[in-house]
């Protein structure tokens, strides 16, 4: 009988991670005091390249990467302490988020030596930013069905196809594009490859997609015979599926999967202050309890990743639980509006933003249906 119960052994932050947490809090307080940015949005919306560069200057990007590629060789739990604090403060992390979270690690793991030298140190300095090039108009959850195709030509590859929901493609420098380069095979997972594509190139078209909150973060990206040089292929041709799935544990287990609602919760708390009613205390307490469980599991996954394990299943579980929690909070804290005398502008703004962005929370990084399918497979049901 397979192990049917997922177990998350308890890990603790080492003292140096807690020391770093204090440094990050002090840094963020200084930045806010200087009026450099206002708390708001989240890792997918709040974009500020100069903030990302300041993090790079402090050695807070590429924290776990080797020094020879511009990294700082800190532990995964130190990086986790940093990302937690950045998210909890609603700092503008969107510019570097994808590059730091998954593009850099992908290049370090699968990229060529020249790719590692060319791109990774610049990511760690906060100079170049990356987008994810996976979804297409006809391929959302069913990623293996993508139709964007790369064909070998003299000196490289020519890409024809279209990507969609490409966050900040109009501002970022590169996208890592998944394209079909060969036969799909029976598993449909063969014949896929990843390419580093320059989003500023003249043969790449980036068009805006405005979301229902009225904001432009999404784009569609069109490749109409886009040329990419041979040295922009990441890893082996045909190995794209394995490479893409290796990014998932990083993508799904982090604190961004349960902290999207934190601004609403903190705004409510700040508004109520010492006069918080028992109803409000109860809601805050229930949220706190679930957050403790989620955070504990997230710490476990970071530690497992650092130990060289691939906790994909645990990551999927955390993301489903975390994003369901985030969405549930909106209704709970909306109902508490009449407990605030009067509701602050901060509370109302956070509530509106959370409400409008909520649908994206249980879609991005794997829909809840996909995640539950992964958990079910882990339970031996599929």
């Amino acid at each position, binding site marked *: 009988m397979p192990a*049917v*119960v*997922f*177990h*998350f*052994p*308890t*890990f*603790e*932050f080492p003292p*140096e991670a*807690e020391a770093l*947490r204090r440094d990050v809090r002090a840094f963020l307080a200084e930045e806010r005091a200087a009026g450099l940015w206002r708390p708001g949005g989240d890792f997918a919306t709040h974009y500020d390249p100069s903030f990302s560069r300041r993090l790079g200057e402090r050695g807070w990007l590429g924290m*776990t990467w*080797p020094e020879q590629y511009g990294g700082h060789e*800190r*532990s995964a*739990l130190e990086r986790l302490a940093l990302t937690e604090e950045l998210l909890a403060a609603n700092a503008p992390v969107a510019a570097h988020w994808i590059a730091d979270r998954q593009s850099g690690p992908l290049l370090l793991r699968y990229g060529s030596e020249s790719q590692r030298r060319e791109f990774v140190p610049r990511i760690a300095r906060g100079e170049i930013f990356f987008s994810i090039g996976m979804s297409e108009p006809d391929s959302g959850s069913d990623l293996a069905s993508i139709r964007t195709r790369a064909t070998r030509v003299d000196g490289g590859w020519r890409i024809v196809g279209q990507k969609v929901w490409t966050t900040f493609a109009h501002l970022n420098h590169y996208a890592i594009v998944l394209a079909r380069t060969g036969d799909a095979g029976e598993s449909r997972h063969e014949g896929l490859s990843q390419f580093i594509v320059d989003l500023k190139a003249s043969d790449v078209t980036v068009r805006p997609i405005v979301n229902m909150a009225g904001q432009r973060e999404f784009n569609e990206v069109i490749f109409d015979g886009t040329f990419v040089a041979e040295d922009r292929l990441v890893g082996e041709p045909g190995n794209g599926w394995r490479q893409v799935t290796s990014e998932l544990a990083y993508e799904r287990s982090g604190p961004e999967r349960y902290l999207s609602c*934190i601004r609403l919760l*903190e705004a409510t*708390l700040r508004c*109520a202050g*010492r006069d*918080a009613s028992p109803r*409000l*205390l*109860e*809601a*805050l*307490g*229930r*949220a*706190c*309890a*679930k*957050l*403790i*469980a*989620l*955070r*504990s*599991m997230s710490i*476990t996954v970071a*530690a497992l990743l*650092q*130990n060289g394990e691939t906790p994909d299943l645990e990551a999927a*579980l955390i993301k*489903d*639980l975390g994003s369901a929690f985030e969405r549930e909070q909106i209704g709970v804290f909306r109902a508490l509006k009449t407990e605030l005398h009067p509701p602050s502008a901060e509370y109302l703004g956070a509530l509106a933003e959370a409400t409008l962005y909520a649908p994206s929370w249980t879609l991005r990084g794997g829909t809840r*249906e996909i*995640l*539950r*399918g992964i*958990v*079910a497979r*882990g*339970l*031996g*049901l*599929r």
Partner: protein
Amino acid sequence: MPAPDIRIVQPVLAFDATLEDAARRAFSDLAERWYRHGSGPAADEPERRRSLLRTVVDLGFADALPAPDTRDAWPDAAVIIRAQARFAVPVDMALLLATGDREASIGGDPSEYVCTARSDAPPDTNAAAALALGRCLQISSAMQAALELSLGYVQQRKQFGRPLARFQAIQHSLAIAAEEVAASVAITDLALACMVAEGGASARLPALLDAAAIVAGRGVDVVYDVCHQVHGAIGFTREYALHRHSLDLLRWRDHLHALCGGELRCAERLGALAIAANGLWPGLTSLMKGGDSE
């Protein structure tokens, strides 16, 4: 790359001398009952009984045999047993112990299952914390048992020409239940690690137990809902095993919440803690920080 610097918090067997003594007495009582009288579910399974005794010896409790009469202290002591058992014995043994606990502490009337929990917290805070933690550990174990039973059942039971496990609706229901179980186990382990590292008098333990009581309380609702739903009518019978786990869960949760003064009080205390820390996040991070809490 630098060497990983990660500390795994290892649970240890004994919390303190008092609890160890309670555990010792209850454990030996269990073993003796099964061994000498052949009562309980293991009566017709000599191999399992021998295995139980081996476990008793392995744990260093053998010298306590034969047992003094600890019947009055039974339910509370058994909690501690389970706390130990989950980490010290194989899963099937933990399940046996769970069953033994159930049979020893409740009668045959279904209505008793939910309401026989003792609600009077022991005067000693150390023991009260251990008791609440023990209930959380028991709940975690029983949730896992109910989930395992359900996973086995949906693979065997066929409707519309295929196993229930093949239906996506069933898969997703059980995934949701598994997620809640994982959360309950994780937060219980966190409280356990705190108890082990800092003792029952730890300043942050009560808040972690409040949090565990809330998460586990919700987990029980989901498990009770999903596991019975996927079982259909058979799960609602006395002859099928699911009810043992369900009734354990309901009873233990009642007791856990009674020990904490009620689920609402748990939540309000945590909320007040966040207010006092001037933020949910600062409150939560300092609560989860071990050792040198400032």
